């Protein structure tokens, strides 16, 4: 596709790349660098002022305090649970939308899945708070069966986060399933594969990068969330909450704490990139 580099095209490339890279480096990488740097600073415990003396106390505290380990593990398991729930819901829904429903239905179904994305994060989280509350709909709906709603807590956090990020998982999976050529499925059937065999050997490998791409969103968004936790989490504490509450009190500690999600996500991205998921992001 692109011609061999000539001095002219190299100049054009530089002109194209310079503004976005400059912006990203200055505004984003620069900020991340400041954050990382400030993790090695200290805080005056009386005035909450940042003291710029180099030390590794924050990381030491992070690694040796059991509470931080518990919270980090809890956050990780909630993010993993949300991702699994979303994948389990998105696969059949996207499969139905892309391959089973009639052609005329695909577009409306896709729109139906997309629309809530625009309705606002807070609006939806708050709607769940109301639903899970004492006189809420969930309780009212479960009461005839003698059941109780989950109330506010870890379960509610998983439900609401899975709810919020579901479209981010359905969209890439739908796109991948829609692109899957019918010929491949026919070929699989012609070679004697039954439905399950075709699903396992043809469909699943084809949607795997899409699921991984979707999981980048569900995993990362859950890992950093602190508002949903505040709204429906009851007493549950996640990494996001601890970081948010430390920002004004002890910025260096908050910075050290945010290294945890950053390391987790970068590892995840690196792993997912090998599977080619970032190309379908």
């Amino acid at each position: 596709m692109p011609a061999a580099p000539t001095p002219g095209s190299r100049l054009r490339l530089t002109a194209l790349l310079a503004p976005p890279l400059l912006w990203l480096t200055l505004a984003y990488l620069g900020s991340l660098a400041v954050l990382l740097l400030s993790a090695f600073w200290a805080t005056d415990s009386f005035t909450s002022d940042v003291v710029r003396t180099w030390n590794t106390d924050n990381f030491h505290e992070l690694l040796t305090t059991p509470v931080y380990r518990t919270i980090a593990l809890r956050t990780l398991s909630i993010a993993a649970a949300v991702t699994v729930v979303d994948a389990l819901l998105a696969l059949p829904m996207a499969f139905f939308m892309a391959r089973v429903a009639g052609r005329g239905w695909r577009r409306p179904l896709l729109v139906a899945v997309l629309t809530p994305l625009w309705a606002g994060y807070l609006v939806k989280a708050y709607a769940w708070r109301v639903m899970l509350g004492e006189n809420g709909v969930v309780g009212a709906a479960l009461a005839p069966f003698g059941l109780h709603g989950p109330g506010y807590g870890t379960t509610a956090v998983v439900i609401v986060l899975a709810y919020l990020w579901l479209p981010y998982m359905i969209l890439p999976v739908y796109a991948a399933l829609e692109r899957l050529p019918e010929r491949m499925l026919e070929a699989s059937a012609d070679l004697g594969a039954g439905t399950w065999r075709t699903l396992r050997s043809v469909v699943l490998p084809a949607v795997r990068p899409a699921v991984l791409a979707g999981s980048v969103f569900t995993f990362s968004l859950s890992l950093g969330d602190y508002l949903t936790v505040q709204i429906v989490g009851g007493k549950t504490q996640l990494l996001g909450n601890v970081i948010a509450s430390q920002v004004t009190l002890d910025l260096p500690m908050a910075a050290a704490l945010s290294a945890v999600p950053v390391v987790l996500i970068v590892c995840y991205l690196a792993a997912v990139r090998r599977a080619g998921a970032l190309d379908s992001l």
Partner: protein
Amino acid sequence: MRISRTARVALCCVTAAGLAIVYVPLLLVLLNSVNTDRSFGWPPSGFTGRWWRAALHSEGARQALLTSLKAGLAATAIALVLGTLAAYAVHRHRFFGRRTVSFLLVLPIALPGIVSGIALNAAFRTVLDPIGIGFGLFTVVVGHATFCVVIVFNNVGARLRRIAPSLAEASADLGARPWQTFRYVTFPAMRSALFAGGLLAFALSFDEIVVTTFTAGPGTRTLPIWIYENLARPHQAPVVNVVAALLILASVIPVYIAQRLSSDTAGGRL
């Protein structure tokens, strides 16, 4: 692949149930905005238009909406320029570090909002504050634009992959300068992708709260910040409900436009 009738019905039921769960909370917010009760109880005790009238006269909500619009438009404009340039570079050129550039662009939305938020906060505090640029609309726009770039980049990139490079080559062969080729060939083919990308970027900025919390000064209130601040105030709750209901109703418009515009960009990619 043959799918049995039972499997079809089962898949249909799962999808229907999934969509029902998606819409129940939204319908409840709508219902709640005309509920006579101040606090939400189930079932509602009666219906009233009072809260809607109160909300329409709420100065705080109107100001916040205006701030959100300003921030969203400015961030989208920056993202459109930077995202398109980057998409052009990555999809029309081969160069060393090409994959690193795409990776870098994804990073602001791949990292949790709280990390981006406090990183920007720390940077603004240590770098901008000393030179006299305080927190405000400007810092919000910088934060939002940073994660909006990738949305435009993705949309425009998807389109560029579909536009055959031979079109641009033909244009060059016919004697057009690069700028003319862009103006008469490439740009018209990209227009709807730019619009869809811009729309998504605007929506992302409009809904963003975490990065906004850490980059806005005390006087700068976007709509999500206003909603969050007023959620906790019981006497404001009905007005917040109406604003929430309005947001849900308004959400139909951009989806409709995006769907009309293009099938490959707005629908398939975030």
